[in-house]
């Protein structure tokens, strides 16, 4: 089966000089959750905007479900759903009216539409609030409505641009439950952007790390982390073993260092190698005081490829966005 999204050398230059997306190429397979991870301004949203036909690429091309995003924009629009970063639900309609309107825009058969709307509103837990005006909804409810709207027409590919941005931890967890549920039910391919490392790590089948408009790494989270050279086991001991070679000999061990009463053992899979290491130390009569396995995380991956920490890159901009979002919500209420 050909990849459902194929992107070749996509470039977007704004105002003649800002290279927001600078020649990205990647494929997304049908049914997978594909994540775009990077700091704000890395080109995530611009890429999504091009793939969802909102803006035209400066050069390069891409297909979604076999349709060219420029020449067959309307065919692409038919098979995709977009849950954009900023809210797009209509405040002055009820939740249910928003859903029906969306169904009308995608020409979902009338007789089926009401069932689907019922099912989706139930799925995102908005059945009780369906006849209330959206302006009375909380931020989390709006976001869930937005998600449900993106699914009314059963898109083949669902684009989620920062779907959990600005939500509290609990709501984020609930959102992801919904998204995974939907994926299971409809085998929807999900393309998401996020700057939450944990989210990308635990949910995505594959991740593209994007920075300054370029993809710097693309693989499964596990492989990306493995590419850093594996886990580190730290073992504090009371005495040293006679021959360090006996540790190096254990399968899976890459490198052993000893300093200040502590072994730092670099291994491929920490949780599998640790028992062997401990048994060997035990057999040699070494008393183990404590053990710590640390696995490389995506932040370290990000650092490896870009030379800076994603967390640091995000810190200021996340606060910025939070404030902007709060202001936007206030403006909506005033209206």
């Amino acid at each position: 089966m050909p990849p459902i999204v194929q992107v070749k050398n996509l470039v977007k230059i704004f105002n003649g000089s800002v290279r927001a997306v600078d020649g990205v190429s990647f494929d997304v397979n049908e049914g997978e959750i594909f994540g775009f991870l990077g700091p704000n301004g890395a080109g995530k949203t611009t890429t999504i905007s091009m793939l969802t036909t909102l803006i035209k690429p400066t050069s390069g091309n891409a297909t979604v479900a076999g349709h060219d995003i420029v020449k067959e924009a309307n065919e692409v629009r038919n098979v995709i759903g977009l849950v954009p970063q900023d809210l797009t639900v209509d405040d002055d309609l009820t939740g249910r009216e928003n859903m029906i309107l969306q169904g009308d825009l995608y020409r979902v058969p009338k007789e089926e539409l009401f069932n689907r709307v019922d099912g989706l509103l139930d799925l995102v837990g908005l059945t009780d609030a369906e006849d209330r005006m959206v302006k009375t909804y909380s931020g989390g409810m709006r976001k869930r409505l937005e998600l449900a709207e993106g699914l009314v027409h059963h898109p083949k590919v669902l684009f989620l641009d920062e779907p959990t941005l600005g939500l509290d931890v609990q709501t984020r967890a609930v959102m992801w439950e919904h998204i995974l549920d939907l994926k299971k039910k409809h085998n929807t391919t999900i393309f998401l952007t996020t700057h939450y490392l944990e989210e990308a790590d635990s949910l995505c089948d594959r991740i593209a790390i994007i920075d300054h408009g370029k993809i710097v790494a693309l693989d499964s989270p596990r492989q990306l982390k493995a590419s850093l050279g594996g886990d580190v086991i730290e073992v504090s001991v009371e005495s040293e073993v006679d021959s360090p070679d006996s540790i190096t000999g254990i399968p899976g061990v890459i490198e052993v260092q000893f300093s200040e009463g502590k072994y730092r053992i670099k291994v491929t899979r920490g949780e599998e190698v640790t028992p062997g290491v401990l048994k060997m130390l035990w057999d040699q009569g070494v008393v183990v005081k404590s053990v710590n396995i640390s696995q490389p995380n995506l932040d370290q991956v990000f650092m490896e490829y870009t030379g800076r920490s994603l967390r640091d890159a995000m810190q200021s901009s996340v606060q910025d966005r939070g404030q902007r979002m709060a202001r936007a919500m206030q403006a909506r209420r005033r209206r």
Partner: protein
Amino acid sequence: MLRETMALTVRELKHWYRVKVQVFMTMIMPLVWLGLFGQAFRLEELAMGPGVPPDMVQNLFAGAPNYFSFMAIGMLCVMVLFTCMFSGMSVVWDRRFGFLTKLQVAPIQRGIIPMSRVLSSVTRALIQSLIIFIIALAFAYIPGLVGLEIGPGFGIVELLLMVVILTLLALGFAAIFTTIALTIENQETLIGVINLLNLPIMFASAALFPTAFMPDWLKSVANLNPITWAADGIRQLVFENPQPIYDLSIDILGLVIFAGSFLLLGWFFARRVLNR
């Protein structure tokens, strides 16, 4: 295409009738004109003193038996103009609040986005101007007030033709102002544009004053104003001895061309601006 257009038109109308104050406010302005200006300002007596002979009044006011009847018909057309000028406002709001993004991602013809606003404005304009029409008629039955006096020939066909004329006028103006709004990013600018244009369009027409009172240059501008065509056409339908500027068929033809060309312009313009 019909389904998407209807869905979006209904959305617009819901926004309108759910805000009762808004409906009320849009009715107030023409009522003030009819009630105060129309009642107090008896142009025929101002011009010639009291007791002007009826046929002279009719000569002055395109066949209307009094000035109030003349300006009431003009006010229907002004009502259409004032309602349709704001038809683009929701495009600006939608752009601001992201709803436009949703429409741009949806597999719908781009032209539907302005057309739905046009249709909802036309609906509103018709409802509001017909209410004005009824109120103006009712004035004739209130002692001490002047009302709209229509000729005995005014029947169902004339009423329908009047609705057609108002619809064409509304389509044209709504199309113009929605098209303008497609290029505007904030509501202050749009309100500025509306304020700049509303009075000139209203006064440079035969809506409130007969063109006979105007200097030549203004008269020639007024004769090209679609509001003049609409008012001229409706006056021929309503009054017993109309004194038209143009033949009724010319008025309607002019309005068809006016509405048709701006609708087409809006449709194709939307394709250009909404597909970046």
